[in-house]
Each structure stands twice: as C-alpha cells, then as structure tokens.
C-alpha cells in the first residue's frame, strides 16, 4: 500500500459556486475516501418559522434556495394548504406548474453551463447561460423577479399570466427549443465532453437505491423516481414519463438533465394548451392546525417539506429535506476510486446546492 495523503478540497474552490469542504484521502492520484464537512452557510431559516407568521414565512421559504426558489415556496404552500384543507383553483395549479417547469429549465441550463466550465469548455458555458437568460426574462415579465418570484401564496398564486403572455411564452419555447437543440448537440456529440464524463463516477442501480439518491442522480442509475408522477399541482392532467438512463455515470446524468429540459418545454406547452380560465386564489381564513408531509420534485430531486402547526399563526416546526442532502452519500460513494482530476466533475454532477442543504 502506498502512502496516503489528505488534500483539502473547498470550501473555496473555482468549481464550487457555494462552500462545501471535503477532505480527500488519496493514494497517489486516486481518491480512497472523502470526508465531507458542511456548515459554512447555515442561516437558521427553519428556526425563523417561530418568529414569522405562517403567511410571512412563504417569502422566507422562497429564499432557502436561489435556483429552485419557486419550488421551495410551492412545497411550503402545499403543506399549509393541505393542513388547512384548502382547495386551490385549477388555474393556480396550472400557473404553478408552468413556473415550476420554467424553474427546472433555468436550473438545468445553469448546471449545463457550470459543467462545461468545470471541464474548461468556456464557450459552451457562455452559450448555456445565454440561453438561460431567455427563461429569466420570461420570469421577470410574468412575476417581476428574475430569481426570487414571490408569486406563490397560500391558497393559490398572487399574479395571473394573461393569454397574450402565455402565447408569447409558447413562442419563446419554440426559440429556446431550437437553440437548445443546437447547444445540446455539443454535449451529445463532442468527444471532449464524452472523454471527461463517460464512465466517470459510476453509481449502480442497487447502490443508488440503497444510498437513497434522488432526482437525476437516481434517474441516471435507472431508478424511475419522479415525484411529479404523484400528480401534485397540474401534473395529474399532463402526460409525461420520468426520464431514465441505465449507465449511472456522469455522462448519463448529463443526458438525463438535457432530456428533462426538453420534457419541461413539452410540459409547459401542454399546460398552456390546457389552462382553464378562472380564479387564481382561494381566500384562506383562520390558522393552520396539524401536520403534513409534502414531496415535490425539484430540478435536483425530491424535496420533502414537513410542517407542524398548533392552531396559532406561528408554526411549531418546518423541516426541509433537500435533494442535495440526500445525494451527498451517493456522491461520497462515487468519489471512491476516482482520479483527483475528476473530483470537480463528480461534485458537480449531483448539482450541489449547499444553501438548500444548510438552510
């Protein structure tokens, strides 16, 4: 056995948008073990539920994450609505679905850019992020914000999208789809992309299941876990199948995400064609009393929202199990046996969102 070296990775590293620390135990250039350490950006947002009333907390919940902010707000609102037994209008369900799928598109496009940047493909990074701007512009036009939307509310949504704007979104989808086909051809065909991702960090189906991987990490290993199939919001009216791959390597995780962007475009088109007219919000009276678990499919995987209310306007407890937290054990397993140069790519392929994980 050769001598072992410990190399600290992070919390500040060019590939990481957010701080996470890993102690990499190496034998020559091969990683034998990775010891994670988190806690650099804990903000105590779960504790804040005792200070802010349940309606104000909607805005706090949205700020748990800067990328999947809409789905955090939606998960929280869905739990409170279930506790209070509020049935939200159909139009609000559809609007939530449209915004959620747009969030998925912008999150995956951001990730594709970051991946390209991680293996030094700068122009691909620029092209991905340029395309993402189109999605952000739709957000700004419909909600008023580019990253934090403040549109989801308990009982429905706060802003409606007019039929002209929906038509405009539909047209934007055509443009995005065309540009995305050009862009993703590089990911699918380019030899340098394949060289850096194919066969790197293979996670078997059994291991993905045992370690509780979620989202594209699980889907790339052949597990068809997609919470949208449970039919929350308007997903029960839309036709789709979870996208899976069987290779379980970094390349499979990339292709799953790319196909999910195309699937989101399709879901948005379906939602726009089916959206009914009507109210967007149900009036909510009284305070919640009870507890509820909500499971929502975020771009990174399944998020679990647990809320416990006591009949006053302040909740007892809100607990969020975020997808990145569930994917960390799987990440540590894939890191074992990989080369030091592949560590950044592997960390990126779980699409880490550390501010979600630490809240």
């Amino acid at each position, binding site marked *: 056995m050769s001598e072992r070296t410990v190399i600290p990775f992070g919390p500040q590293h060019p590939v990481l948008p957010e701080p996470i620390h890993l102690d990499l135990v190496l034998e020559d250039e091969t990683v034998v073990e990775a010891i994670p350490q988190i806690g650099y950006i804990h903000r105590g947002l779960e504790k804040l539920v005792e200070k*802010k009333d349940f*309606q*104000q*907390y909607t*805005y*706090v919940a949205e*700020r748990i994450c800067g990328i999947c902010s809409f789905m955090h707000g939606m998960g929280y609102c869905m739990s409170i609505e279930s506790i209070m037994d509020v049935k939200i209008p159909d139009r609000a369900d559809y609007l939530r679905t449209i915004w959620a799928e747009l969030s998925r598109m912008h999150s995956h496009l951001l990730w594709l850019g970051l991946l390209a940047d991680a293996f030094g493909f700068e122009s691909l990074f620029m*092209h991905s992020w*340029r395309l993402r*701007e189109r999605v952000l512009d739709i957000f*700004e*036009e*419909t*909600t*008023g*914000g580019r990253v*934090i939307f*403040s549109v989801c509310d308990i009982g429905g949504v*706060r*802003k409606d999208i007019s039929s002209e704007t929906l038509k405009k979104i539909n047209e934007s989808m055509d443009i995005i789809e065309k540009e995305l086909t*050009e862009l993703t*051809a590089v990911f699918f*065909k*380019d030899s340098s992309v394949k060289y850096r991702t194919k066969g790197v960090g293979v996670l078997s189906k059994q291991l993905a299941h045992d370690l509780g991987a979620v989202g594209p990490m699980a889907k790339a290993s052949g597990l068809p876990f997609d919470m949208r199939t449970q039919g929350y919001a308007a997903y029960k009216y839309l036709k789709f199948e979870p996208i899976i791959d069987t290779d379980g390597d970094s390349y499979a995780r990339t292709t799953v995400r790319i196909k999910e962007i195309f699937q989101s475009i399709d879901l948005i088109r379906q939602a726009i064609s089916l959206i009914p007219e009507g109210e967007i919000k149900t009036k909510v009276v009284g305070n919640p009393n009870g507890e509820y678990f909500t499971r929502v499919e975020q771009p990174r995987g399944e998020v679990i929202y647990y809320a416990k209310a006591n009949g006053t306007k302040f909740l007892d407890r809100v607990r969020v199990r975020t997808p990145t937290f569930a994917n960390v054990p799987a990440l540590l397993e894939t890191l074992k046996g990989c080369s030091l140069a592949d560590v950044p790519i592997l960390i990126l392929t779980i699409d880490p969102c550390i501010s979600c994980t630490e809240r």
Partner: protein
Amino acid sequence: MAILNMSKTLFKSLFHGPYTTLYPLKEKDKYERTRGKIEIDMPQCIYCGMCQRRCPTGAIQVDKASVSWGIDRLKCIQCGYCSEVCPKKCLSMDNHYTTPSYGESKDKFTNA
C-alpha cells in the same frame, strides 16, 4: 458534420454583436411587473400600520403621532406583501430599482 456545425455557430457569434447591454450607457428595459421598489402616495395614507405588521423583514415604520411613513430600502425584499394588504391601496411597486448607496438607505415621508 461537426466542423460545419462549429463554423455555423462561429459565424453567428462573429456577426451578431454582443448579447449583453452596455449597462451604464444603456439601461435594460424594465417590464411592467418588475419589482423595483415600493412607492407611497402619501396623502392617501391613513397610518393604519398594516404594512408594518405584515412586512416579513420589518422594513417599514409607520408613526401616527408624527404622520410619517418610513422604509429601510436595504431591508426591503421587494415581495410586495405591503402593497397587497394596504386598505387604501396607496402603496405600489415601482419597476425601477433604488439607487445604490453607501451605508444606510432610509426614506421617510411625512404628511404636512
């Protein structure tokens, strides 16, 4: 043909010009719904304090005695909750951002 695809992208990028805007010289177009900053129509205000109570960050200060309404611009998260609960609808969301500032940025409005 990979090389043809590449040159297509290359020529498109060469002749398109920048996709970004030259910010201080040319400002990006704001949408009608862009959440910039909260504005108040002061003569309408009845100092009920609903906005102060509902504000998630406690950015708003309403004082009935001195007939004033104040906002800490750096605490405000532009959620628009105050403008929604205002009974007189005197609060509104402007689509232009506040100007950058050193230190504190508090605005206070008073009805004479």
